[in-house]
């Protein structure tokens, strides 16, 4: 009895310790968040002491390192959006399609081979994708649309899209695989085709996981730097034409932060302002994505 009690106490202490450790782990994520927000926003505040907020948000010229300086972020914003939207148009359907194929159609053996293969795509360094875009995708685009510039948003966004396919595919596939088989069988027993089981039962039931996969992947697309730095051209011009060269927010940031800029200068602070802006954009995008997923999710 005494032993029993001891064991229980020890067990309870163990539980408590574990919870504390896990809480500590979660605390690190919170700290990271705070640190990043702090890193970005503290310099941003200084930035806005020197640059007018109106110019920043409404100006259409972005030349913070060139004389005469202009700080209108719209060109970068539009560039970023073009890349993100373009990449999503590629990655979401292809990724989800692959996920459905792997989870619902593919024989087990095929799945076991293809899934890791696709995941290799996620590990190829982004410079490789950058040059792939430049030397492979762009010439193809130019063949069909001769007005395509050598550096252009379209080919960069296609490359970014390809790079994030495995993220969408793999994570969505896991979400679908986790749906208990009895649910699937229930649907088949009602005379469903595979297509119907996949789209009407499995995908809705796995929507939360699929939504997360989308959000992670699109975030990655927005945050991607090297591909756009190489293939999209680094020209901060306000254009909605994806065949023209553009600059994204990340492209600008990598340019400055790996370049020869003195710390403390306005150029340097601009990096943080842009970073903070990017942070806000992804934040808003996440909120919207959450709302959409919650709206359509059928999980009870």
């Amino acid at each position, binding site marked *: 009895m005494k032993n029993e009690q001891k064991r229980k106490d020890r067990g309870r202490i163990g539980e408590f310790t574990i919870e504390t450790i896990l809480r500590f782990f979660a605390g690190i994520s919170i700290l990271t968040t705070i640190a990043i927000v702090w890193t970005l926003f503290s310099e941003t505040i200084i930035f806005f002491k020197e640059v007018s907020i109106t110019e920043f948000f409404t100006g259409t010229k972005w030349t913070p390192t060139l004389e005469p300086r202009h700080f209108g972020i719209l060109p970068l914003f539009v560039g970023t959006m073009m890349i993100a939207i373009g990449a999503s148009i590629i990655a979401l359907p292809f990724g989800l399609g692959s996920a459905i194929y792997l989870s619902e159609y593919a024989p087990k053996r095929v799945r076991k081979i293809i899934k890791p293969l696709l995941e290799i795509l996620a590990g190829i360094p982004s410079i490789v994708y950058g040059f792939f875009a430049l030397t492979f995708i762009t010439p193809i685009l130019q063949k069909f649309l001769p007005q395509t510039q050598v550096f252009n948003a379209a080919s960069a966004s296609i490359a970014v899209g390809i790079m994030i396919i495995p993220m969408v595919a793999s994570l969505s596939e896991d979400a679908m695989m986790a749906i*208990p088989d*009895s649910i699937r*069988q229930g649907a088949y*027993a*009602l*005379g469903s085709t595979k297509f119907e089981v996949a789209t009407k039962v499995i995908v809705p*039931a796995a929507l939360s996981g699929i939504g997360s996969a989308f959000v992670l992947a699109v975030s990655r697309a927005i945050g991607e730097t090297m591909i756009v730095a190489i293939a999209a051209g680094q020209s901060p011009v306000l254009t909605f034409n994806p065949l023209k060269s553009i600059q994204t927010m990340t492209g600008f940031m990598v340019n400055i932060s790996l370049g020869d800029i003195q710390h403390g200068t306005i150029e340097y602070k601009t990096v943080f302002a842009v970073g903070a802006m990017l942070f806000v954009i992804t934040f808003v995008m996440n909120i919207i994505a959450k709302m959409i997923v919650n709206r359509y999710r*059928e999980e*009870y």
Partner: protein
Amino acid sequence: MEIKIKVENLTFYYGNFKALDNISIDIEDRKITALIGPSGCGKSTFIRTLNRMNDLIAGTKVEGTILLDGKDIMKNEIDAVELRKRVGLVFQKPNPFPKSIYENVVYGPKRHGIKNKAQLDEIVEKSLQGAALWDEVKDKLHGSALALSGGQQQRLCIARCLAMQPEVLLMDEPTSALDPIATMKIEELFETLKKNYAIVIVTHSMQQAGRISDNTGFFLNGELVEFGQTDILFTKPRDKRTEDYITGRFG
């Protein structure tokens, strides 16, 4: 006597394990066929082969023939989708979709092309009434099916199947989680349905088999020990093992 499903020399394996051994049986139209036997003897396995649900389990193997209205269902003379539409199955373990009650019931009809809202509403009401569930859930049709009690889930799955109006109903212990009154209602439903359909029910209640079925099959260790008219099987079983089982002297 019209034979709806003719099973001949059916043998079934899970991997190396022979779960059904050379079963031959005739399922008559407009009759209720009951399958009885101790737990683990192969009843569920058998009933699932009738609409090819076992195709979905990896590593299984079927031999023999199953004819639905004379057509071999295993040779793709009828394809699986159509087969399953015509031969409805209610699983032993309730498996409602993680959707609303309403969406569970209309799932099948919608897939099979019924779009009209009024028509769907009608199907929902009728099917739930048939499954003796309507009164309990009519106010929460758009609530989650997973928030139902065990017996309610079971009836929902019956309703989901009825909504398809299949020609053959396969029911794997459809009233196992139900109280006597709900059971009675479901049994009454079967009596009505059998005017048009062939019904196969797996049950572990000998009373139930005796009460409602026309024919009964007794399974034991994957074999069909005896099959025949219910009253005869229960009163004058030909096989010693059947007699032992129905008199409770078994094992």
